[in-house]
C-alpha cells in the first residue's frame, strides 16, 4: 500500500511491483516537435469530465495512470497557456498508449 497519495516520479516502464493483469493502464508521452517534454502536467478526466488524477511528465516526457476500464480524457497543461485534450479507452490487463504533441 502506498502511504501517500502524491504522484510518483513517472518512469518509462511499469514499476516492477505492478501486476498488469489487475490494472487498466493509460500511458503516454508529451512531445514538442518530436522531442519529449519533461515537466508538463497531465490530468486524467473521467467520462463526465471530472478530474481524477494529475502527474508531472518525466525527463522522457512520460505520464502514466492506473485507471478503471472505460473512456477517459487526458488534458496536458504546459507553460504558455497550452491545454490539449486527448481521448483514450482503458482496458484491464492492457496499457493504452498515446502521444500528445504540444
Amino acid at each position, binding site marked *: 500500500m502506498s502511504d501517500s497519495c502524491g504522484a510518483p516520479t513517472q518512469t518509462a516502464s511499469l514499476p516492477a511491483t505492478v501486476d498488469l493483469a489487475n490494472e487498466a493502464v493509460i500511458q503516454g508521452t508529451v512531445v514538442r516537435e518530436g522531442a519529449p517534454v519533461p515537466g508538463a502536467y497531465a490530468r486524467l478526466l473521467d467520462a463526465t469530465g471530472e478530474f*481524477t488524477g494529475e502527474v508531472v511528465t518525466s525527463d522522457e516526457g512520460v505520464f502514466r495512470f492506473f485507471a478503471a476500464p472505460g473512456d477517459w480524457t487526458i488534458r496536458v497543461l504546459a507553460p504558455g497557456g497550452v491545454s490539449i485534450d486527448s481521448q483514450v479507452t482503458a482496458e484491464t490487463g492492457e496499457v493504452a498508449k498515446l502521444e500528445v504533441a504540444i
Partner: protein
Amino acid sequence: MSRSDVLVDADWVQAHLDDPGVVLVEVDEDTSAYEKGHIRGAVRIDWKTELQDPVRRDFVDKTGFQNLLSEKGIAGDDLIILYGGNNNWFAAYAYWYFRLYGHQNVKLLDGGRKKWELDSRELVEAVPSRPKTDYVAQEQDLSIRAFRDEVVEAISTKNLVDVRSPDEFSGKLLAPAHLPQEQAQRGGHIPTARNIPWSKAANDDGTFKSDDELQELYEEAGVDLSKPTIAYCRIGERSSHTWFALHELLGLPDVKNYDGSWTEYGSLVGVPIELGDAK
C-alpha cells in the same frame, strides 16, 4: 478573515522574495522536485520524513516540531509562505499542521508550484542557509483535527465531506488513479458523506476557486454550511486542501480534518460502510 489573510498570489511572492521575516517553504512528498529547482530562498520540508512520526502513525510531537522549525531557521513571528507540488496538497497539509501547532502567521501560495511553473517564473537550485532559531510551538489545537470515534459519531449528524475522486468514493478504486490499486482495506465511503472531490475547489492551474464558487459548490452538493463539518480523503492531505477552502477561505467556524481518513476508516472492524453513489 479575508482571502488575503491566508492566500498570496505568485506576483506577491515575486515582489516579497527578499523581505526579512518572510520565509518560503516548499513542502512535498517527492523532494526531488525541490532539488531540480525551487523558488529562490525557499527551504524545504519533506512531508513524509519530517512531518510524520517514523514509527507510529501520527505526526511528530510538539518537541519534534519545535526542533524541525528551529533547524529550518524559522522563527515564531516569521510569515511562512507554503507551496508545493500536487496542487498544493502537501502544502495545504503543512498549513493545517502549522496551524495545529499554533503558528498563526502562515499563508499558502495560490496555485503552488504548478502555477509558478506554468507562469514560467524563475526556479533556482541554490539551497539557502538560515541560522538556527529557538522555535516554540503550542499544544495541538484539536478543534481542527478529527479522530475516528468522532467520525463514527458524526454519521447523520455532522457534514462529512469525502474529497476523493468519485471512483474512490463509490468503492470502484481504492487509491488515486496515478497509483497502483492493490490495497488491504475495504472500499466505499462513510455513510451520509457527500462526495465533493478536492479538485472541484481548484482551477486547472491549481489556484483556488472564488469564494462564491466555493460556497455554491458545497451547498449544491448538500453540505449545510451552518453545521460542523469533517473532511476526509485517503490519508488526509487532499482533505487538508478542502479544510483550507472551508475553514480558511469560506471562514466556517467548525471544520475538522480527519487525517486518519479512508486508510484508517476502511480498515476498522465493524464500522458501517456505504457503496456506490451518495445516498
